[in-house]
């Protein structure tokens, strides 16, 4: 797939202004969406559809910090096989396990407030991880690539995401 930064015409960086990114996505959609080419000859319609799919995919990739980090690692030449799978410190694994148990308990007893509190704590952790990733990626841009650190931070982010997904599922059950 084409590089999402190139597709959306933005400078590659982990820290992006999402308001501007969404605006860019909409500006491009305005010209590329198939509805804009509905009356055009078939070749143009196919081309527009292909472009629109690519722009939507790029936007999907860049608005999510996990896939955005993966796209940056791709650009930095970190091999794909090393990027997969969560890599987290034993300390994080312990913390996650405890939070999982707490979530399962809250879910079983239908304690929505407790679930919200757990989610809040994890979101706080997410913000910290994002800040560290921003810093590590800007060092990498400056030539100081520390791939193991980036991968471990990305692993943390994946754990956080999975936990928040479970929170969503728990709230789905209880609502």
């Amino acid at each position: 797939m084409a590089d999402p930064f190139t597709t959306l015409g933005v400078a590659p960086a982990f820290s992006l202004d999402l308001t501007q990114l969404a605006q860019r996505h909409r500006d491009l959609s305005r010209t590329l969406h198939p509805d804009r080419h509905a009356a055009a000859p078939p070749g143009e319609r196919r081309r527009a559809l292909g472009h629109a799919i690519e722009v939507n995919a790029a936007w999907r990739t860049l608005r999510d910090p996990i896939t955005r980090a993966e796209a940056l690692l791709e650009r930095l030449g970190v091999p794909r096989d090393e990027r997969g799978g969560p890599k987290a410190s034993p300390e994080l694994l312990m913390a996650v396990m405890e939070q999982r148990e707490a979530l399962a308990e809250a879910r079983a007893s239908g304690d929505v407030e407790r679930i919200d509190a757990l989610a809040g704590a994890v979101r706080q952790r997410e913000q910290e991880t994002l800040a560290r990733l921003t810093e590590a990626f800007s060092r990498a841009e400056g030539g100081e690539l520390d791939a193991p650190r980036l991968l471990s931070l990305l692993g943390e982010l994946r754990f956080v995401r999975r936990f928040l997904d479970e929170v969503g599922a728990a709230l789905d059950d209880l609502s």
Partner: protein
Amino acid sequence: MLLDIFDPKAPPKAVGIDLGTTHSSVAVMRDGRPVALTTCDGTPLLPSVVHYGAHGTVQVGRTAKAYAEREPARTIASAKRFVGRGAKDEQTALLGSYRFAEGADERVVRFDVGREAPVTPVEVSAEILKSLRQSAIDQLGTLGGAVITVPAYFDDAQRQATKDAAKLAGLEVLRLLNEPTAAALAYGLERQNSGVFAVYDLGGGTFDITILLLEDGIFQVKSTGGDSALGGDDMDRALAERLLRAMGLEDPAARTPELIALALGAAREAKHRLSLAEQVTVSVPRRGGGEAELTLGRQDFEAMIRPLLERTGRACKRALRDAGLSAEQLDGVILVGGSTRAPSVQRYVQELFGREPLVELDPDLVVAYGAAAQADLLARASDEVLLLDVLPLSLGVETMGGGVDRVLPRNTTIPAGARSTFTTYADHQTGFELHVVQGERELASDCRSLARFTLRGIPPMPAGMARLEVSFDVNESGLLTVRARETTTGLEQQIEVQPSYGLTDEQVEDMLLDALDHGEEDLERRRLADARVEGARMVLATEKALAADADLLSDEERRGVEQALAGLRAAAAQATRPGVVQAAIDVLDQRTHAWAGRRMDRAIAGAIAGKQLGDVEGSVAHAAGVEAHLEAHQRGRN
């Protein structure tokens, strides 16, 4: 009375059609405003009921509805509930007065309407669309295609079936449009608003909730959710169940289609009366003679439908969460669908969102209005408004263990595409089966099965050597296309598609030929009309492109394009065979090919240029642009 002056040279008007569970309607833009056309019933709303008479007659609308209690098996209402569903589907088994034909093919529901051949929900829907098409032609002279609405939560099989019905009815489908998006378009154009809106759409048989952002002429859906098997019909069924018991018919075996139809009719009437009165009395015949009288209060009814409303509430909460929003952040809640007329439904929505919902536009017609607006925009190749919709349900592929490998998650902006790579698991394996499913559940068997694809002709290789690249493309109507390629040899694979539900292309083609009096001849005439309309539209679009981007053509290319354009103009006006128009389209297509690429590159550069995005320190946020949009939006208002 003002007469519409029919201008034979004016381009044919495109219409918007709301094909609803209980009612359908067709609308067109006139002087910049949507107007509902009169249906064969003389009203804008046509009951979605089709009656198959004993002597081969087919009636649609009010006249068909009149037969509902007398000849229930021959009178199909709510066909939309069965569209794109299988004979063994849970929905098919719900309380109803139909007789189903026993058949080997479980992929399609077939109604036994007392004729030699049973009819499918696609054919029933086609009768309704045919009637609306005729009404439109009677009032507009010619017809330039249609936008047809579907519930946002319709899956691929249901969308495909709707498109098939339109094809059978002789309609050129410009696009399928999600009902809540259509409603938002109608409201947005009406009120010139911007902000984040929720569209709560409770129809006769389907429920949709859509959260969307309106800004700068773009209607961007953030999330959608719902239940394609929940609506006013379920309220009727809950009430009818109580009536059937009062009639002494606890035992399902004692219930004939006639008695069920009677109970459903009485239930529907009681529901409508309860919108105005606090209490109503219903009288129904008792088994073994006499009458049973039942007094129903609004509170009884509310208690009865509360579980249904709570199901809508759960879907609303999830949609808000998917959009990353809370109810307080909304700028408005729009009500759509006849069932939202019930005071108890309105009260529930108000409770749920903490604000009074918007009801200015007729909830029964607002969807057709929006569809008409979109049809008009497409036919005029206008760039005033853009609708960005999403995939309602995740798409995935069944894995070896019966799980689901998700290729596109729900709420992905469409058009969308994804590629997955698979490999062979046995030596010299030459075939490969792919099971595509849609839904959120973890097991493939709990999701909706869309299709099985069998790939053949893989060159014999050791296990794990072949690389099968499968691409999934969802277009702007939410319709899926799957393609496969073996990448080590570059061979395109033959794909056999076995849709899990619905009709195959050949079956639709056969039905189409059967439906026409003179088969091939009529079909040819219909294709000619469609090709001419399409050709005329293409002429218009190419003229617009020439006005804007002629500088991207060399003199020679420009002569070529103009020649092809003149050829197509002549063919669209005079051709007597569809092939002639098609040939002219092909020539124009080929001569505009390279130019189209340059124009698109220019457009992309234009969208990107001058607004270089810089990285802003500390602005990393988790969610999609919604919060960011909201902030910008709120800043703008303060």
